[in-house]
């Protein structure tokens, strides 16, 4: 078997003991023939020791009492929630594998996607995509985008609401229309931010909001071709996600959340009224 050349990353992984034993032997052979690299590796090992020597004593400092009291009341509930989420997640994988039809794009994905695929199989298949209406495809894409991004703790959005001007300028430029995230304060939702996504016919914007309890709602705005006729409000459920969608003036809008129809209708109406002021 050919040995792959020793890379910079291998040398660091050697320093940090993150190599397999086979690779470690290869790196040692390499270093035996390269005293300059051996010196560098030795210097990095020394750095590690010096850094540990400098910072390890901090671990022995007493912990201030106020840091030792996490919110234990909330803990039990959250632990149960964690267990539920875990099992639902595992169930989703098993379900999508057993379902067979879920296909490569759904492997390991959350259960709502697997459920969606069985409810709307045509939409997931490229050949059958034309059979779904523009609105159905819009709703499906919006629900998937909601399922993918709304649980993300780390990066729910690309640009946060604290930089709303930049968010608006960027998304407007990319979609080629003037866009502004509607204010949903009156409905109890605050803007978190937004991101750009690929849609069926070009870039799509997703704005994310949350309410006081942290429940998230997304508004998906997609440029549909002008020849597509406008539609009235429609409601669809995709697993636990409800989607309210409509097409207006060549633009598709979809509002997704884990909420009931009435709640979404209330938000959809507010969004519609802000986009089409009387």
């Amino acid at each position, binding site marked *: 078997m050919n040995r792959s050349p020793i890379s*910079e*990353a291998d040398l*660091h*992984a050697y320093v*940090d003991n*993150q190599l397999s034993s086979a690779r470690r032997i290869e790196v040692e052979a390499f270093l035996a023939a390269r005293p*300059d690299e051996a*010196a*560098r590796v030795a*210097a*990095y090992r020394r*750095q*590690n020791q*010096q*850094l*540990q020597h*400098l*910072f*390890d004593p*901090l*671990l*022995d*400092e007493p*912990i*201030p009492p*106020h*840091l*030792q009291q*996490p*919110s*234990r009341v*909330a*803990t039990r509930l*959250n*632990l149960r*929630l*964690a*267990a*539920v*989420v*875990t099992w639902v997640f595992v169930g989703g994988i098993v379900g999508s594998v057993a379902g067979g039809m879920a296909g490569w794009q759904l492997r390991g994905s959350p259960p709502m996607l697997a459920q969606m695929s069985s409810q709307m199989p045509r939409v997931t298949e490229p050949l059958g995509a034309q059979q779904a209406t523009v609105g159905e495809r819009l709703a499906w894409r919006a629900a998937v985008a909601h399922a993918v991004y709304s*649980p993300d*703790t*780390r*990066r729910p959005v690309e*640009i946060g609401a*604290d*930089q709303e001007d*930049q968010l608006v300028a960027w998304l407007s430029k990319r979609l080629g229309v003037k866009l502004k995230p509607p204010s949903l304060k009156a409905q109890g939702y605050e803007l978190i931010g937004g991101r750009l996504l690929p849609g069926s016919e070009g870039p799509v914007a997703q704005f994310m909001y949350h309410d006081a309890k*942290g429940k998230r709602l997304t508004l998906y705005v997609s440029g549909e071709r002008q020849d597509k006729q406008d539609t009235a409000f429609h409601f669809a459920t995709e697993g636990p996600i409800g989607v309210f969608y409509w097409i207006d003036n060549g633009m598709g809008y979809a509002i997704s959340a884990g909420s009931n129809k009435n709640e979404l209708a209330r938000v959809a109406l507010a969004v519609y009224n802000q986009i089409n002021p009387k």
Partner: protein
Amino acid sequence: MNLDAEIEACIPRLRRYARVLLGGHHASADDLVQDTLERAWRKIHFWRWGSDLRPWLFGIMHNLHVDQSRRGQISTQSLDDTEFEASVPPSQDDMLVIQNLQDALRHLHEDQRTVVLLVAVEQLSYQDVARTLGIPLGTVMSRLSRGRTRLRALMEDCPQTSGQTSGQISGQASPVAISMKIIK
């Protein structure tokens, strides 16, 4: 294993990492730890059962720190790692004398310092560092490499250690050392 106890066991490490992020400011470091713990308990259902808690907690802390330091600032564009070489914070002193390791660390770019410390001190796997910071593995490796190169060059300027190693590297005029000279 009790999750309470597991999270509590991470507190000393969180405090240490917070001080590193905040440059040794102890009171605000503990505030950051507290914020991290609170957020961790609120988001505990997002933690994947059985996975290592540390990278997850460090990630929460890292994001809080980034959020807090961005607040009230004009948005910044992210730069390529290569551009960091030119953006080292200039030394306050006219004479750049690196007294010790702690000094040398302060002269590392924050992105590099964070990666070096997560690897060398916390001994996280590279994959966990990438997850903690929300950056690709390749970026972890390039920051680690740059950070170590720079730290090595800085330490060789340091009076305490210069004698031992200067002979070995006299031939390589390190680019890091040159850029430091330009700055002073």
